[in-house]
């Protein structure tokens, strides 16, 4: 108490400082409430949620790309198979078909699929000898591109033209046999979306619970801070900051795990060649969307924490 002898004025803050007080304002950097960061299950929970979300989203995006590029390549496509077993007769029929089909309304292009392409298609199934020896009759194929989706009326017209020229020909609209595949892909994408929504809801619920637990654990401290003039906003910011750090750490880990998973899966899919599955690739904007998942996660966690903390504080005096 050395000070008490000399001075009679206690060393309180100056008037000028006091006038600068913000009535409800705040420096947000005060450690009003102790923080338990990167401890407890929250970062790991968020890491798992982010990892699953990113993988599910990657799957949905890749499936979407597959459907888009496949349907673009076969859109308006109709295939005519000429099944005539005699090779010269088969060629003759094809020669007759090409100009006839060319003249039809709505036809963009007509092309005979070259023999090598056909051989390449069937070789893996029938073996080199069968194909090269000409022992197995392989149908001739004619690719027709139509303007827009092949309607059944357009198919009918094609069939009418073909029937007299090549009685053994079969007409297939390519989209028609892929239709069920596209439907399945679409369902998968909706399921992925539903999964992501549920993951977000589960994360919010976990954050809500964690925030409530934290408030209860620090109720006494919060009361004191209230009594010293601390606002709900100031207190909520402490919790928000803590949850944001948890979520950022967990989100980064989750994203890293998910990206490794996706790359590994990608290598597997690349091994399948450029068939249907090979079209399931990710574009650069897809990667951006995936990278945004943890960021959205951080904001979701912060918003949930704020909502829950403000509500709990609102019930205190």
């Amino acid at each position: 108490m050395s000070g008490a002898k000399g001075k009679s004025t206690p060393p309180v803050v100056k008037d000028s400082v006091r006038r600068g007080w913000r009535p409800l304002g705040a420096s947000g950097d005060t450690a009003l409430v102790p923080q338990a960061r990167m401890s407890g299950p929250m970062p790991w929970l968020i890491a798992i949620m982010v990892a699953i979300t990113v993988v599910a989203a990657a799957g949905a995006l890749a499936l979407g790309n597959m459907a888009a590029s496949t349907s673009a390549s076969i859109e308006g496509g109709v295939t005519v198979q000429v099944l005539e077993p005699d090779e010269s007769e088969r060629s003759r029929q094809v020669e007759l078909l090409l100009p006839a089909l060319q003249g039809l309304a709505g036809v963009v292009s007509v092309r005979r699929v070259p023999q090598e392409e056909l051989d390449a298609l069937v070789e893996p199934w029938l073996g080199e000898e069968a194909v090269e020896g000409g022992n197995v009759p392989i149908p001739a194929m004619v690719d027709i591109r139509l303007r827009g989706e092949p309607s059944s009326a357009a198919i009918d017209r094609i069939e009418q033209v073909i029937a007299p020229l090549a009685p053994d020909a079969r007409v297939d609209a390519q989209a028609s046999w892929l239709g069920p595949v596209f439907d399945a892909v679409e369902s998968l994408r909706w399921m992925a979306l539903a999964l992501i929504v549920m993951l977000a809801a589960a994360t919010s619920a976990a954050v809500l619970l964690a925030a409530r637990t934290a408030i209860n654990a620090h109720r006494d401290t919060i009361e004191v801070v209230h009594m010293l003039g601390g606002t709900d906003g100031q207190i909520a910011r402490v919790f928000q900051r803590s949850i944001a750090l948890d979520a950022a750490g967990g989100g980064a880990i989750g994203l890293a795990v998910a990206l490794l998973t996706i790359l590994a899966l990608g290598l597997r899919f690349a091994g399948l060649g450029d068939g249907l599955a090979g079209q399931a690739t990710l574009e650069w904007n897809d990667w951006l969307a995936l990278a945004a998942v943890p960021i959205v996660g951080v904001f979701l966690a912060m918003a949930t924490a704020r909502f829950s903390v403000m509500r709990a504080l609102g019930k205190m005096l």
Partner: protein
Amino acid sequence: MTTASEDEIVRFDNVGLRYGTGKEVLSDVSFSLYPGRFYFLTGASGAGKTSLLKLLYLAQRPSRGAISMFGQDAITLPRDRLPGYRRRIGTVFQNFRLLQHLSAFDNVALPLRVAGVAEKDLRKPVGDMLEWVGLADRVDARPATLSGGEQQRVAIARAVIGRPDMLVADEPTGNVDPDMAVKLMRLFEALGRLGTAVVVATHDLHLLRKVPDSLIMRLDKGKLSDPTGALRYPPRKGLSA
């Protein structure tokens, strides 16, 4: 010889308080507090001292009656305006209630930081204040490592650092020796000279004699007696006691 009642910073009219459905622990409490005046709140244990102080530092709403504070009706005060009022009130809680995760310095700095005072503006006053209460060498200590008396002095430093318009102290000298108690009363008096209304709850009747011109609020089973009317219209300083 009365102070104009416009000066009063706190006014209680027939205030009653009950916890839950229990009986009233405060009944028909009426008084006024004036700037720069020193009030001792006395009464036996359980008389309602802490309860009355809680009403003063806005930790509790009354069950009935009227309270006005700094010229405003405190009963209908919306929740979001409480922080602004509380920043004008310094409180020494009965059991100190220091934040355990903060050092002595940070505990004392807390009211200033909460009010948005810049770090450069609070270093010196907080350091000086800790020196004033004899804790210059315990600045970085956590409350858990401080003795009861030291914790009490940190709590007092925290309450007065912002030079509140009203200081509310609940048995602030219970854990310090008599010499320190007197020194702390000098600190409160000095604050009073700066215009702060000081309310100190105590059952240490010795202390009362140490502060001339103080006014006594005597609580008995939740009732406040004011036979001379001094708690509504206090006599000029130098005429009381």
